[in-house]
């Protein structure tokens, strides 16, 4: 199994997974704490519309995903800031419409769309070098943002009304958070696909929430959990493929691993009678 590490494609997949885990751990922590998991799911599916458009018009699908994700984040953010509640329907619409557009665009696209499934369920085994660079830059940017704006971001995630009254630039910070969520979601699409992104983003942070009492520690632990599960998922799917000839995508394995870990963590947490989790 360790032999997998000799292959360059596997090394690259592992590097991609670890880099993605950092972005996922940082952003996922805010997503869980601010309870915007459904928004992140909506953004992932909205991004699929951009992937379809990429196929149709002929630009890189990931660029389309990024554009659709960011525009949806801006739209949802502005409405959320104005209405402050009752956003469920809008998120559900963005979610489904993104999907519908993606499918229509992709069916209209000339020629075959061979990778479409890989956007739905992820394909981390064959990542281009550009992906590694993009994710590395995103990680650096996220770390800098969190160091510089830790307290304001924490305040806005925790209590928007008080933050506004105290004079914190709530709207700008919330839109920043949604924008970073959109970019991270697009990065994670490569790892586990549109459909499973929400799980990879939120479950490690939710597990970390069981055992830590601060956003900073949650981010570190969520990153570690994500990294371990992505790595394990990669090895398991490589092993199944090499030894049994079973060709199963890596993404679903990763999700089953984090989900199992969540169940174990939740049980252990309640047995130990620690503080209430999410």
């Amino acid at each position: 199994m360790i032999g997998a590490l000799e292959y360059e494609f596997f090394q690259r997949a592992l590097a991609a997974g670890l880099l993605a885990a950092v972005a996922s751990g940082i952003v996922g922590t805010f997503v869980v704490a601010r309870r915007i998991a459904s928004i992140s799911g909506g953004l992932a599916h909205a991004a699929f519309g951009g992937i379809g458009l990429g196929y149709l018009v002929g630009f890189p699908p990931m660029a389309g995903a990024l554009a659709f994700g960011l525009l949806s984040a801006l739209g949802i953010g502005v409405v959320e800031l104005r209405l402050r509640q009752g956003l469920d329907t809008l998120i559900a619409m963005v979610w489904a419409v993104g999907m519908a557009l993606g499918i229509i665009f992709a069916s209209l696209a000339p020629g075959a769309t061979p990778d479409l499934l890989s956007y739905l369920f992820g394909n981390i085994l064959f990542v281009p070098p550009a992906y590694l660079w993009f994710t590395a830059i995103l990680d650096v940017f996220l770390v800098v943002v969190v160091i510089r704006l830790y307290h304001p971001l924490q305040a806005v995630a925790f209590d928007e009304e008080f933050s506004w009254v105290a004079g914190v630039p709530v709207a700008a910070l919330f839109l920043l958070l949604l924008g970073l969520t959109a970019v991270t979601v697009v990065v994670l699409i490569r790892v586990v696909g549109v459909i499973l992104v929400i799980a990879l983003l939120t479950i490690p942070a939710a597990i970390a929430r069981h055992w830590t009492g601060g956003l900073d520690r949650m981010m570190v632990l969520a990153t570690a959990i994500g990294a371990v599960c992505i790595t394990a998922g990669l090895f398991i799917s490589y092993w199944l493929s090499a030894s049994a000839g079973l060709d199963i995508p890596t993404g679903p394995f990763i999700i089953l691993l984090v989900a199992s870990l969540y169940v174990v963590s939740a049980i252990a947490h309640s047995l130990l009678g620690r503080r209430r989790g999410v």
Partner: protein
Amino acid sequence: MSAPPILLRDVSYSYGRMPVLESVDLRLDDGDFLGIIGPNAGGKTTLLKIVLGLLTPDRGTVEVFGHSPAENRGVIGYVPQYARFDASFPIDVLDTVRMGRLGIGRRERSKESRRAALAVLERVDLSGMAGEQIGQLSGGQLQRVLIARALASEPRILLLDEPTASVDTRVGRSVYELLERLSEQMTIVLVSHDIGVISRYVKTIACLNVRLHYHHSHELTDEMVEVAYGCPVDLVAHGHPHRVLPSHESVGDR
């Protein structure tokens, strides 16, 4: 002549078709300590949110020291209702209090805001609790953390929404005694349904049930209460002859 801390003229607000506030006029001067009582859905929280600028009135004007609330953010310290508050959020007491020091224009080093937050915690007798998770605190401790957070912004006005709704009588008294001391330094408005206790500490009292009944006095007449609640309420006895509001215990418990 300097502008009064709070000045509301003919303020009305409604949720959809249901009027919550009608033609509310209110002027507070420096050093006032006003208690506003009234039934649930009588508009108490809405009135506070309008003064804070979180809600914009349908009609009328709101001024905080002569400016709109949005222009004067940071001037008011806000203590929201405990029950509406996400106590499961992963944050400790110190970081919660530091939220009060995050306003724009307040560029200070991390060390300074930390020191300021610790000093405020001392003022509310919570010195040893800085590292505790807010989810671990008792109702009374959390209430004082919320007051400390508001005080950390060094406000000139303090607005409190039901500050004793979820604490027992003894803790409630300590909260009011703290407010009494603070009222020497700033203007305070608190809303509550707790008629008996409130009238012992505040300087003036008003009744709010869509309309505001306020005579700039400490006296709470039977008539005012009757207008506000729509029924007679015995003000002398500690246990009211009939509860004006449902018990809060079931709401406050987590």
